[in-house]
């Protein structure tokens, strides 16, 4: 988050309580603890992929579609590549795309939302018309439209998914701003001649962090699912990078001869999304937000 300065006394307490609320929520919730453990494992796997993967994920052999064994713990795929190594490397793409897209759409979306909410008027109108336009469609459909137009590849996928989630953050941020900006201490700051920018990002934003974090926790799991779905449809990162969606899509033609190709990559997607959903649920409880939007 930008400008979450701990030096500012007025907000450091809010800041502390924010972190401690999340911490408490996870500490007291079994599911959240399990989720955190799973997510940490996946993060470690992603970081240390090169050390953990027993084989080069793209190394082929004539040992094609061999069953899980001690040599290949999860078996090999239709080109004789080690499935475990491919899934391990796939973790990187999945987590990277999941977190980076949400980070981008959060930063841009919150900025737009705060800007629109604070100034109102024609800026608000233009931004909100665009947000409304996007709001009419499920995020995944928007991502499909965008990839269709921009083409595939890592950068394009990131742009497409980030843009697709933009409206959610903008909406949340804007509605928070509309509530907070009427508060007396904002009025006071304005009278003192504090700049708009300072008011927006030092006074208003820190107080609307809760709902935004909740939104982010929801978005990450959908961003990961979205990347996997796009890869599965052949609209993904690249044919050369092992991603979970792609491994599943490629394995589809062989699943009755090699069930492991259809089972393990999907299991990986499910586990990571599950862990984030577990954590997200606890965070949501902590902020007491009944969140139903997708």
């Amino acid at each position, binding site marked *: 988050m930008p400008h979450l300065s701990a030096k500012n006394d007025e907000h450091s307490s809010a800041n502390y309580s924010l972190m401690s609320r999340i911490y408490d929520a996870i500490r007291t919730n079994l*599911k959240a603890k399990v989720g955190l453990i799973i997510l940490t494992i996946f993060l470690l796997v992603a970081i240390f992929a090169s050390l953990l993967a027993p084989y080069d994920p793209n190394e082929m052999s004539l040992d094609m579609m061999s069953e899980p064994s001690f040599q290949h713990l999860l078996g090999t795929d239709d080109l004789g590549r080690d499935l475990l190594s491919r899934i391990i490397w796939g973790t990187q793409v999945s987590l990277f795309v999941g977190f980076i897209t949400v980070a981008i759409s959060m930063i841009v979306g919150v900025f737009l939302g705060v800007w629109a909410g604070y100034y109102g008027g024609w800026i608000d109108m233009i931004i909100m018309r665009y947000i*409304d*336009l996007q709001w*009419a*469609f*499920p995020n*995944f*459909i928007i991502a*499909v*439209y965008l990839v*269709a*137009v*921009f*083409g595939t590849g890592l950068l394009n996928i990131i742009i497409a998914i980030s843009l697709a989630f933009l409206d959610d953050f903008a909406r949340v941020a804007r509605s928070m701003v509309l509530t907070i900006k009427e508060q007396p201490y904002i009025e006071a700051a304005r009278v003192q001649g504090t700049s708009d920018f300072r008011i927006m990002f030092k006074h208003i934003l820190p107080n609307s962090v809760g709902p935004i974090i909740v939104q982010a926790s929801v978005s990450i*799991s959908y961003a990961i*699912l979205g990347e*996997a*779905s796009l890869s*599965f*449809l*052949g609209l993904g990162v690249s044919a050369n990078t092992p991603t979970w*969606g792609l491994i*599943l899509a490629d394995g*589809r033609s062989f*699943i*009755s001869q090699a*069930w492991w190709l*259809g*089972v393990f*990559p*999907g299991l990986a*997607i*499910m*586990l990571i*999304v*599950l862990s984030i*959903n*577990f954590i997200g649920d606890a965070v949501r409880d902590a902020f007491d937000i*009944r969140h*139903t*939007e*997708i």
Partner: protein
Amino acid sequence: MFGYITRRILGALLVMIAVSTLVFFMLRLVPGDPIAAMLADAGSDEAREALTKKFGFDQPVIIQYFKWIWNLLQGDLGASLYGSNQKVTSILAEALPRTLSLACLSFFIAIAIALPAGIISAVKKNTTADHTVSIFAFLGLSMPDFWLAILLIIVFAANLQWLPAIGYAPLSSGFWEWLRHLILPSIAIGTGFSAIIARMLRSSLLGELKSDYMRTAAAKGLSDTSMVVVHALPNAMLPVITVLGIAIALLFSGAVVVENVFSIKGLGRVLIQGILNRDYPVVQGAVLLISAFFVFANLIVDLLYAVIDPRVRYD
């Protein structure tokens, strides 16, 4: 209320126009030659020129756009660039029932799973049953629909050979024929949605069960089951309606992917294939229809909610 509805409908139309305009110009910005794809190896240069002219690709994009709008106003969405140049309207008319069949059946499956699951977990709060439902709900939410589709194909189509792995049969070929082609894809789409409904239902039922009238009913000696089904459930269903908009979004996004797994030529597959083939008229038509679908579904859900919940004002 009348003014509100009119305003919403006008807004919806504006959204549709904006989206189709955006898509029209964006499609033409990207590389890919529809005529080349159409002719494959068969084309001579004369054929290429003749077709470019026939479809008007030799004209400026802005002229093409106004032509498209003009034809649209007359209910003509143009024709596919492929094969026998099927009318886009007839392609969409054939795809729509497939997607709707899929969406409806998914919806029913979702409700059929969610109702008992939600009721059990609310009534038996914090028991093993409740926890089991909750775990399954989380799994359902986290499972990618296309993966579930693959698992279902491995088990029920490839190994047990009970149900077809592919395709769609229209209702005219018999109810069972129709149904058996839709069962696996509908389960794949409906499962995630059922998890959402079950969780919503649980929390709103818990709220209802705490309310005064339920205590009164209990005092009257009504049994647990009839209390829940007769009294609490109808009230608890109200908030569930709010997720209908999400339902439509979720079922439709699911259909786009799952139709591709099962080779069902519904709206999602029409859209994806149109995109891949650069079949401009088809993509434009599909985007327009899909947009209309969402925009009006949202509108109806909002109005429905407004009718149900008198606190919503129309201003």
